[in-house]
C-alpha cells in the first residue's frame, strides 16, 4: 500500500516536472508525450495491478508485475546504450574542438625556422 502511494506520488512528480519543462520549451513535444505516457501507465498499474495480468498471460508470463519488470529492464538497458553512444559522440566532438584550437594556436619558437 505504502509502495503504491509512493510510486504514484513519484509518477505525478515526474509528470509535473516534464510539463513544466515542456512549457519552457526545454524538452520536445515527442519527449513530453512519451514521458507522460510512461508515467501514466505506471499510475494505472499502481492503482489496479491485476489489469496487466491478461496482457502478461498473452505473452506467456503469469503476472503483470513480472512483465513490467522485464520490460523495464529491456527499456533501461536500451536507454543506457543510447546514452553511452551519445556520450561517445560528445567525446569525439570535444576532441575535434580541442584539436582545432590547438592547430589554430600552433606555437613556434623564435630562432627556429
Amino acid at each position, binding site marked *: 500500500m505504502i509502495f503504491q502511494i509512493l510510486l504514484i506520488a513519484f509518477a505525478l512528480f515526474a509528470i509535473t516536472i516534464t510539463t513544466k519543462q515542456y512549457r519552457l520549451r526545454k524538452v520536445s513535444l515527442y519527449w513530453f508525450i512519451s514521458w507522460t505516457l510512461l508515467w501514466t501507465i505506471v499510475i494505472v498499474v499502481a492503482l489496479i495491478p491485476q489489469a496487466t495480468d491478461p496482457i502478461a498471460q498473452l505473452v506467456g508470463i503469469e503476472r503483470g508485475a513480472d512483465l513490467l519488470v522485464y520490460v523495464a529492464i529491456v527499456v533501461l538497458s536500451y536507454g543506457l546504450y543510447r546514452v*553511452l*553512444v551519445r556520450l*561517445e*559522440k560528445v*567525446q*569525439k566532438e*570535444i*576532441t575535434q574542438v*580541442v*584539436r582545432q*584550437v*590547438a*592547430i589554430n*594556436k*600552433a*606555437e*613556434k*619558437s623564435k630562432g*627556429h*625556422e
Partner: protein
Amino acid sequence: MTIVAVIPAYNEQSRVAEAVRDALLYVNYAVVVDDCSSDQTSKNALDAGAIVLRHMLNRGQGASLQTGTDYALENLKADIIVHFDADGQMQGSDIQELIKPILDNRADIVLGSRFLGDSIKMPLSRKLVLKLGMLFTLCISGIKLTDTHCGFRALSKKSAKDIVITRDRMAHASEILDLIKVYGLRFVECPVTIKYSPEVLAKGQSSWGALVIVKDMLKSKFLDV
C-alpha cells in the same frame, strides 16, 4: 621531401627537450602535441625547437597523434610522418631505417618492432603481454606482426591521410592496424631499439594498460556510430 616527427607528450618536462633535439637530427620538423600537461612540457619543447600544439583538455595519445598529423599534412605539407615518443625511449637514429621503405616506395607504412631490434632491458612481463597482443591482433585484424603496439612508426602522406585515428586513448595502435587492412596499405616492420629504464617503467603504461586497450577496442566495436 618534408619529414615531420609527431610527438605526443603528457607531463614530460624532464625528457621532451632531449627527445625533440634527437628527432630533429633526422627530420625537418618536430611537432609536439602537449596534451594539457600541468608542467613545463610546452616551454621545454618550444625551446628545443619544436612546433607546439596544445590541447586545452587531455584527449589522450591517439587524439594527439591525429592532431599532430592534421597539422603536419595541412600546414607543413609533410611527405612522411614519424610517430615518436617524448619520453626518450626511442632513438632518433632509428628514423633513417624506418623511413627507408617509404623513400624506396616499398611501403606506405613502416611499423617499428621491438622484437626485431634490441629492446634494452624489456621486462619479461611486458614481453608476455606484447606476445598476447600479437596473437590478439592476428585474430582480430588478421595481420601478422612481431610487435603490434610499438609507438614508433613512419607513414607516407597517403597512409597518413587514410589512417584517421578516432580512438583517442591508447587503443589507437590497434585501430591503425585495422585501417592498414581496410585500405590495403603496404606495410613492413623495421627493427627499432626501445630503452626500458626504471624511470620510464615508473611513468609509462603498465602492462595492465593492455586490458584497457582491449576494453577500448571492444567498446568502439559496439558504440561507434
